[in-house]
């Protein structure tokens, strides 16, 4: 990766504005390391995540899920980067609260996901102590202690430092939103990672809102990726609605990070839902904004790509969606019937052994 000031032009596959704008990708050989099977696999994971995401929202309205943050609209960014991380095989993830699709696709079963959202004992992240999918999923190399915005950044840098000390080549991917870039800790994390050339990829899922606060009220600059220059490492802005573009950018970033140090990847995404189930975005989002954004729905885009590239038939795509829905139905029932953590556990693990 060139160590120069970023511009959209430099983003791995052309301008964010055009790529994915028309939805499908023009027929072209798949990028390095990518097989058609990967696309099918990741479409399957994406639709499963979407199906769970939609159901969770509905369950909240039924009073069965106290709180949820949706990743609808962010899936291509989350799964594209995950795909690159999985192919690399030696990456560790520090996601944030909006990374539902990432956490699901990283390997949880639908049942585990539902257990977590319903605060059941089967929650794999914290056994019902924390908000859904918050805590740690070490089997899948994921840590997210809190939903305190930007708190994970310095931790991810420290984790990378620890890996280096342990003689490992692990690359750490840390995820956060545009809002998190205003926090002082974000500045400190990037500066330290740069000084020590630590293999950390800062992935900003820029949906241009921090709850109700639009990007222009959060910062003067247009491109968050341009901040990387102030730390002396490269930053790029890519189309976060395009799974393949996010995969490519992340793959290159992983190579760069391991060899030369941090990279900032700004992935332009859209927030399809309100901030959380507690929010009412009609108060602050312009009429029609979400509708227009949905025309670039990453799930639909990927499905269309699979069909147009002749990888799957419409029928197969539908079957995958149907199977995802079935798994979501089943998971909902199992989780609903399962028991919450026993109150006797309240005092466990305040301290470690």
């Amino acid at each position, binding site marked *: 990766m060139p160590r120069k000031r970023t511009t959209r032009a430099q983003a791995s596959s052309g301008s964010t504005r055009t790529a994915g704008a028309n939805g499908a990708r023009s027929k072209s050989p798949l990028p390095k390391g990518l097989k058609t099977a990967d696309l099918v696999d990741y479409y399957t994971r994406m639709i499963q995540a979407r199906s769970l995401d939609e159901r969770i929202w509905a369950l909240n309205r039924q009073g069965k899920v*106290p*709180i949820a943050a949706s990743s609808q609209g962010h899936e291509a960014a989350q799964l594209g980067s995950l795909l690159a991380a999985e192919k690399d095989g030696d990456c560790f993830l520090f996601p944030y609260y909006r990374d539902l699709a990432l956490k699901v696709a990283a390997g949880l079963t639908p049942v585990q996901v539902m257990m977590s959202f319903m*605060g*059941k*004992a089967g*929650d794999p992240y*914290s056994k*019902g*102590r*924390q*908000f859904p999918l*918050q805590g740690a999923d070490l089997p899948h190399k994921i840590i997210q202690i*809190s*939903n*305190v*915005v*930007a708190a994970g950044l310095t931790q991810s840098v420290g984790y990378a430092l620890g890996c280096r000390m342990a003689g490992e080549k692990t690359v750490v991917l840390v995820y956060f939103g545009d*809002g*998190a870039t*205003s*926090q*002082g*800790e974000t500045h400190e994390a990037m500066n330290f990672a740069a000084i020590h050339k630590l293999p950390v990829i800062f992935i900003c899922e820029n949906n241009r809102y*921090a*709850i*109700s*606060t639009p990007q222009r*009220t*959060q*910062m003067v600059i247009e491109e968050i990726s341009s901040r990387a220059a102030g730390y002396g490492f490269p930053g790029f802005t890519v189309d976060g609605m395009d799974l393949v573009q996010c995969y490519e950018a992340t793959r290159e970033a992983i190579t760069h990070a391991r060899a030369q140090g941090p990279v900032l990847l700004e992935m332009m995404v859209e927030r399809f839902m309100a901030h959380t189930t*507690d*929010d009412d975005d009609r*108060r*602050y989002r312009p009429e029609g904004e979400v509708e227009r954004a949905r025309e670039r729905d990453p799930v639909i885009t990927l499905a269309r790509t699979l069909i147009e590239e002749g990888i799957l038939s419409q029928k197969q795509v539908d079957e995958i969606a149907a199977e995802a829905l079935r798994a979501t139905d089943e998971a909902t029932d199992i989780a609903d019937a399962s028991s*919450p*953590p*026993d*109150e006797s*556990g*309240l*005092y466990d693990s*305040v301290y470690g052994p």
Partner: protein
Amino acid sequence: MAVKSVIEAIREAIREEMARDPKVFVMGEDVGVRGGVFLATQGLSEEFGEDRVIDTPLAEASIMGIALGAAFRGMRPIPEVQFSDFVWPSVNQLIGEAARSCYGTNGALQVPMVIRIPYGGGIRGGLFHSQNVETHFFHTPGLKVVAPSTPYDAKGLLKSAIRDNNPVVFLEHKKTYRLVRGEVPDEEYTLPLGKADIKRTGSMITVVSYGLTLHYCLEAAEELAGEGIDVEVVDLRTLTPLDTETILESVKKTGKLAIVHEDNITGGVGAEVAALVAGQAFEYLDGPIARICGPDVPTMPFAQTLEDAYMPTADKIADALRKLAAY
């Protein structure tokens, strides 16, 4: 008098003070068009404009530091911390700087600012949307700390806090926002900081509390009245300045003391109340000082079962008071 919720009372207080004094302004995350995540500032942006209802970037340290700087210039900022759990990035400015600004300039500077902080649990907030943070500010000389339990107190105390020339940490228990309703005078009024309120008079046991648990104490007292146990319930309302006089008077009358709060028991506000009485009303004590408080685990967990296990309840309080009465 109209019956209002705590959140309505708070919104009214801010609105009235902003109308009364052009120096008063609100700043924080999503306080503008969104009206704040709890709608405490709903409508203020439309009424007073974006210059006096400032949507800030997501950066608590700067929210606090910028409010402090504006206060140095004579403004009366009301910074909002969206949830108590997010106050930590800002305490360098709050505990470190704001609390020492008047003292550190030998009185040359005053800090007329009110830090509004929604806090507390029982709302399925888990470890990072439920925290009780009062003790950290209670233990910081230079700060005033208010923690009302009713709409009437919330409005009267918030108006006084806004007119006060010191940094006042104003703690609003999230669960009381809509749950607790009560009469609020239509006419203008304020309540003095530093005065506790005896919410129920009794002769046998003094129970000291504040915020959400104050209501559980009243429930417990009600229940025990039927059993012939006459409980006095003292609502601190203001933690700093602490109304030691009212506390001591009450214990001297009843001879027994119990303290109730949701915050972790060890080193909490209840410890100070106990130490105060053990030091200054020792001769009047007819029994050990009881504390019914949150256990020493890091905030209440998310699962209903665990959250319930954490929270003090009317029943838990009643049980403890029965034992104390029997002593």
